[in-house]
């Protein structure tokens, strides 16, 4: 038996495979394809104080080994969430985490306070990195001072586990991770999407209504893996790796680089059952390599040489 468990402080996860915000709805969209309760956790779609209609269609474009999106945090707001979604998701027997978003620090603080009252939500993921919202959003995640301020403010009101999700659209990812850690984050997750763009050469117009959007999928994996490696070496809190994970091999790369857990994003669109397959796959990989606990491989490349075989 291989031990796959991991923890953020005293919050236990039965395995290190979570689903990424905005790619797994509220879980129920996937009920036909897997038993959500068998996952390490699910991060619900981005939630804001007020309802948001999101950006105009088209909001998506396919790119080589990836996709661009500019959904723009469409959601019905925290009140609707408390009344209609929370009762449903709290029946899952796994860690259900809310991804929170705002334009101002007060928005984040307000959301964190309300969610802290929801018993069955053991953690929030502070999204300071959404590239698809005009004001705020990414601005927090690409400004070191703003990252500090919002983390500190939320930390002050939110006693449960606080995960800060970083934007990859920065020069020095490590400084952002360290800032979040210093301000009291319990964990860092990364990466959110890379800011990208596509143009339809037929119509000679941008493919997205917002012109630019967030790039996700296998295309971003090398960048995500590099950032996770850099951050995991530089902070003491657990790092959750995200970006282009399509299968077990991809997930294992993140563990080897230093991630304590991973989130599966875009891959769930192509195979809605893939996250659970990866749980099994990690277990098989560890067995085949003779390990009995996933902790043994986390960050192992820092203790090995480089190069082929």
């Amino acid at each position: 038996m291989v031990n796959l468990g991991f923890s953020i402080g005293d919050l236990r996860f039965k395995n290190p495979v979570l689903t990424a915000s905005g790619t797994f709805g509220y879980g129920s969209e996937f009920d036909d394809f897997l038993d959500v309760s068998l996952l390490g956790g699910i991060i619900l779609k981005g939630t804001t104080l007020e309802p948001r209609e999101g950006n105009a269609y088209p909001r998506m474009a396919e790119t080589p080994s990836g996709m661009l999106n500019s959904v723009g945090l469409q959601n019905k707001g925290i009140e609707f969430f408390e009344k209609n979604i929370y009762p449903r998701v709290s029946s899952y027997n796994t860690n259900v985490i809310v991804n929170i978003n705002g334009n101002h620090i007060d928005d984040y603080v307000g959301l964190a306070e309300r969610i802290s009252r929801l018993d069955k939500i053991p953690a929030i993921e502070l999204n300071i990195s959404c590239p698809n919202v005009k004001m705020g959003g990414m601005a927090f995640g690409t400004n070191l001072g703003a990252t500090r301020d919002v983390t500190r403010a939320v930390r002050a009101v939110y006693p449960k586990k606080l995960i800060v999700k970083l934007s990859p659209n920065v020069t020095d990812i490590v400084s952002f991770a360290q800032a979040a850690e210093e301000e009291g984050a319990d964990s860092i997750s990364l990466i959110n999407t890379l800011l990208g763009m596509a143009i339809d050469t037929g119509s000679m117009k941008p493919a997205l209504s917002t012109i630019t959007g967030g790039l996700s999928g296998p295309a971003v994996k090398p960048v995500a893996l590099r950032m996770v490696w850099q951050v995991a070496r530089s902070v003491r809190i657990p790092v959750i790796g995200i970006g282009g994970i399509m299968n077990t091999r991809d997930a294992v790369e993140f563990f080897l680089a230093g991630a304590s857990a991973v989130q599966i994003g875009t891959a769930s669109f192509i195979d809605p059952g893939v996250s659970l397959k990866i749980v099994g796959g990690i277990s098989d990989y560890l067995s085949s390599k003779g390990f009995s606990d996933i902790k043994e491989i986390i960050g192992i490349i820092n203790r090995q040489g480089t190069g082929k075989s």
Partner: protein
Amino acid sequence: MTKRIEDLKITENTRLNKDIFILGLSGNSSLPEMRPGQFAQIKVEGSPGTFLRRPFSIHDVDYERNTFRLLIQIAGDGTETLSKLRKGDTLNLIYPLGNSFSVPEKNKRILLAGGGCGVAPLLFLAKYLKSHGLNADILLGYRNSERIIESGEFSAIGNVFIATEDGSEGEKGLLTDHPLLKKESFDVIYCCGPVTMMKTVAVYCRKRNISCEVSLENLMGCGIGACLCCVVETTEGNMLTCTDGPVFNINVLKW
């Protein structure tokens, strides 16, 4: 209706014309119940440019032989790759997805209006209505006679009227100019085709208070309501083409 993800076997790949082909599929287990208007999300293997799944309407279902068919137009890399599948090959589908066309009361005068490969969901719909004791007229519009898809199957079910833009078969002009629409008065029109065509039909129906449902083809990221990419603006706010649709009553659309 439970959605499945499943590998199905190709039983047929028939080329109807330069751009359009029919894929026949059969499963090992018995087929789930499907409704006209629903679609499948297909994983295209071996096409480096095709990352996401591709949505296609259920064209025809034969529960007895445990097979169903898709009617596909080559539009780019993904459909090009699908067009090369051979009998016996395997295809991975998520299906059945989305809502379906409504079934009207008895004695309603029904028209199915399809433009180009928009005829795809209408064959299944025509057969389904028939099985509920309902007859429908069928109006199909194409660019020219070479692009006609109707292969006798529609005529076996109802009266078929054809419009071609160049007049090479049936009436000359757009589907929406066909005299049938002037002559007859329908109670319900089901429509699928290019957006401009569907919009014209919608205007026609609004004027005459005809109940009208259209099938939309928004870009899809997931097909199961998870990505929020396929939104359509409605009188009730943003709705999802993949789960609230693809079939919408024009009353909710802002057309």
